[in-house]
């Protein structure tokens, strides 16, 4: 990214907002506020994805993160308590040790990552460039993402659909898809 690009300041702003929301979520005990703030977190993350140019991801993040998971977490919260139990000091220290170790590992790996927005990364030069070059002549649609997702990588996407299907079947088996209605029929 060039120094004159103004959108990078949006990125910094969004990252700072995400950091503060995350810290606030850690400190809160009220689960309702935590659920609402995770929704806000997703919405700001979606705005950040737009700023990074990933509009596809942003649409899904806004709908799944800010919409569906907030509703599902609220529904789950209604089945349990409204307040989190206070965490013991030992757990705080254990979490701090794990976080510090993970943070050191991430910073150690940082040196191997390409510069943000660099054009000569493996992802941008290998198959990625080939897809961009071949899509106009082979598939002839403007959105290369759709061409890769549905046509070039059709097998991957089919696998994803089956994963979604398996998730739905799993939840249906665990939570009784027809809900409370069937329990009443059982005469419970």
């Amino acid at each position, binding site marked *: 990214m060039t120094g004159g690009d103004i959108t990078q300041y949006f990125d910094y702003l969004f990252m700072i907002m995400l950091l503060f929301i995350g810290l606030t979520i850690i400190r809160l005990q009220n689960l309702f506020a935590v659920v609402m703030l995770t929704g806000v977190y997703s919405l700001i993350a979606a705005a950040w994805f737009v700023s990074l140019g990933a509009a*596809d991801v942003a649409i899904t993040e806004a709908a799944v993160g800010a919409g569906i998971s907030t509703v599902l977490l609220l529904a789950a919260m209604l089945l349990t308590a409204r307040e989190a139990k206070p965490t013991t000091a030992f757990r705080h220290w254990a979490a701090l040790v794990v976080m510090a170790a993970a943070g050191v590992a991430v910073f150690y790996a940082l040196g191997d990552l390409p510069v943000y927005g660099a054009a000569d990364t493996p992802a941008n030069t290998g198959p990625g460039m080939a897809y961009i070059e071949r899509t106009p002549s082979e598939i*002839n649609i403007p959105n290369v993402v759709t061409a890769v*997702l549905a046509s070039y990588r059709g097998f991957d996407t*089919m696998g994803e659909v089956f994963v979604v299907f398996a998730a739905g079947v799993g939840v249906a088996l665990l939570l009784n*898809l027809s809900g409370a209605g069937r329990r009443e029929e059982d005469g419970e």
Partner: protein
Amino acid sequence: MSPYVVLRVVSKLLIPLIFLYGFYVHFHGEYSPGGGFAAGVVVGVGVILYALIFGLQAARKAVPPYWARIGMALGALIFAGVGFISLFMGGNYLDYTVLDPNRTYLGQHIGIVAVEFGVLVSVTAVIIAIFYAFAGRERPAGEAED
């Protein structure tokens, strides 16, 4: 049903637009950001909003749970079925070019929209099914706080 008249009126206006946007994201996915996954989520959110405002019973009447159960499998079958159709029309599995007898781009376009439609159906159905499963559960007796 929600006692707030503003919520009811606004959501009644918004829900058709949410569905319209979902289908736009799907059918315009070749030209603009979007596709089956994002579109399915948006359509599912429309149904969930309806359930939140007008009650779970009304939503169950509008979108019966067995639709969600059938849709989950149907979407995956549509995707796999397009692959088998291209197989039987002489191409490789999921090779959409053969879907058009003249071997033009049209085959690719038909194939992409068809498999994305499978994704849309599956994702929408799974989201609605998971929501029904969570929202249909009642608090265990004796634990009611409020």
